[in-house]
């Protein structure tokens, strides 16, 4: 299994901030409270479950998780 990578679609994100609360290591919020992935979105080992949790809780389905 390869590494996971996350990406927040900026057109879809509405700033619910569920991802930041579930996986603060993987997401950051801007001054308006909208989310984006930390760095290039590569999920460090051990945080895979948090990445999936954030994805399955985003009300706008704005988070894409891909496997490299």
């Amino acid at each position: 299994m390869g590494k996971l990578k996350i990406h927040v679609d900026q057109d879809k994100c509405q700033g619910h901030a569920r991802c930041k609360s579930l996986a603060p290591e993987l997401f950051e919020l801007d001054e308006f409270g909208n989310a984006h992935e930390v760095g290039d979105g590569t999920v460090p080992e051990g945080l895979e479950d948090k990445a999936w949790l954030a994805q399955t809780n985003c009300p706008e389905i704005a988070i894409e998780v891909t496997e490299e």
Partner: protein
Amino acid sequence: MSDTDRVLPEHPPVTDWVHDFDHTDPRWTENPFPIWDELRAVSPVVHTDRFLGCYLPTTYEAVKQIAYDTEHFSSRRVVVRDERPEVQRNAAPPITSDPPEHKPAKQLLLPPFTPDAMKKLEPRVRAICNELIDEFIAAGRCDAAARYAKYIPVRAIAHMLGIPESDSDLFIHWIHQILELGIKDERQLKQAVEEMTAYFAGHIEARKAKPTDDLISTLMQAKDKTGQPLDDSHVLGSLRLLLIAGIDTTWSAIGSSLWHLARTPADRERLVREPGLMPTAVEELLRAYSPVTMAREVMKETSIAGCPIKAGKMVLLSFPAANRDPAVFPDADKVVIDRKENRHAAFGLGIHRCVGSNLARMEMTVALEEWLKRIPEFRLDPAGKVTWSEGTVRGPRQLPVLFGKQA
């Protein structure tokens, strides 16, 4: 009082929910969940001739489609009423705004409501909760809605706006006139809006002489996209929105959560034992007892989930009904406080996502934490009666509880 300011007659009781639903019917007010289940089993969208014609999407998918479709559905009217008075410009931006005006109006309000900003407010909210508990804990009982849940959001938003927390009862009175009585009584609605506008206008004038560091000043200093200050009607509209939206929504969410915990000892004991569950529990309580239903006005004919939708009618955009859709939430009718996947829509979907969602979550969390710390055991008072609000924000208005273990 003009000729149009009428108090409308009471509605006849509903006998056919599928073709003639009414969200102000006492049965809906008391317990809407089986009604939504009945309607959802028949159609993803139902219609009533009441309220001059109104649709209700019953599934998550139908609610979502409407929430995302700002072309066919306008936010210029956000409450379903018996009449359609003239649309007021800057009624309550951005909740009453459509694109393209919506985004700049909303962006002004987002920075003061980020999770980080809410962390700074949290100590004041904890103090408010404890001040309230101090007032009734010795009695061994209280009305948890009227003495506790009701005052937490109103004091918190007053603190943020920079208006006296001691005016809370006045604000609550206006909200009752606007969101409950105003559905049928135009005069009460207008009176409350006028009083609220005059109140804020006074605070704006005071800040012109002596600037302060609060949300009213933030709005007064905000610039629109052309670099000009917002006109007074916009500032006043947004202030009305913050006060209206900031109060009985979260009051209802806290009240429903305490109602659930009062009658579900297993969940209450588990939360006391495992406080780390609070974040998922709050999300689940938000899903199961979502307080807020919004409205839209149909601007152009379209179809939703195969159902034709005609222009000129209203839509009751029920996020609570979406959150009970078993196609999206397994065991949708059960409260599962450690539910992992919970893509609930309690704060709306799409561009009108509640600007105060981070505030509401913080208030709910703090209100439940402080209550459970000091009153870990409580139950409904069998001698009392729980009553629920009428209208489109749902929550207990009377919630009599007894403290301590059952004798």
